[in-house]
């Protein structure tokens, strides 16, 4: 259950439910699955829902950041939604920098954000 990657298409937006405690292999697979789905569905926006993620180490964070850069290269916009407070604390303490990636409180807000943008 923890390893399930769910991809949902809502109009031209791809919603990705990121698994809560994934293997490294699952994280790598997630990146490929998202990029393929983006192309296949011709989505304009991608929401990475990380609301169930309790631990994000540097490998996990780096893969998400890279994925968002790859989405940008393909012409899409990424929003990261629902980071838990304890994950936000450790992310900053670890020294991770999410740069100019858009983050929002939850999936609802990301749909609002993308609706205005796209």
């Amino acid at each position, binding site marked *: 259950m923890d390893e399930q990657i769910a991809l949902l298409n809502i109009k031209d937006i791809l919603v990705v439910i990121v698994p809560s405690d994934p293997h*490294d292999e699952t994280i790598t697979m997630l990146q490929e699955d998202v990029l393929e789905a983006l192309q296949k569905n011709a989505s304009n926006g991608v929401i990475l829902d990380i609301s169930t993620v*309790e631990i994000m180490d540097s490998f996990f964070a780096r893969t998400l950041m890279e994925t968002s850069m790859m989405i940008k290269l393909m012409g899409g916009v990424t929003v990261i939604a629902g980071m838990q407070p304890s994950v936000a604390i450790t992310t900053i*303490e*670890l020294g991770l920098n999410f740069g100019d990636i858009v983050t929002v409180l939850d999936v609802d807000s990301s749909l609002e954000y993308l609706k205005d943008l796209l």
Partner: protein
Amino acid sequence: MNSELLEMMPIKSDGDIVRIRRRTRDLSKAQGFKLADVTRVVTAASELARNIYHYAQEGTVHCYALTEGRRKGIKLVFEDKGPGIEDIELVMEEGYSTGNSMGLGLPGAKRLVDKITIESEMGNGTKVEIIKWM
């Protein structure tokens, strides 16, 4: 300082990193750590377990419950017989990496815990000990 061994876990696969995260979460919760500190301990454990898996292929982690007077804590000791670290000061610098990473593993883990001790000998392996107090 009193230290009691709670558990020893091997690190030799991708799946072991996940298992170590789950067990260190359970153990630090059982010790009474609050969520933010549980997250710090587990994140540090994940970084160090992955370091072993990537650089030494295999190793072990020993988890200890610590008590010192009324103070409680947790200690995790990561050991491997891998290539060793040539210059510990250098790897503790942010952004230094010999692998394909951001080089946040050791310096990142250091910021998440109260104490980190690294011993390493070229060709003989590495031992990293972290302590988090409540």
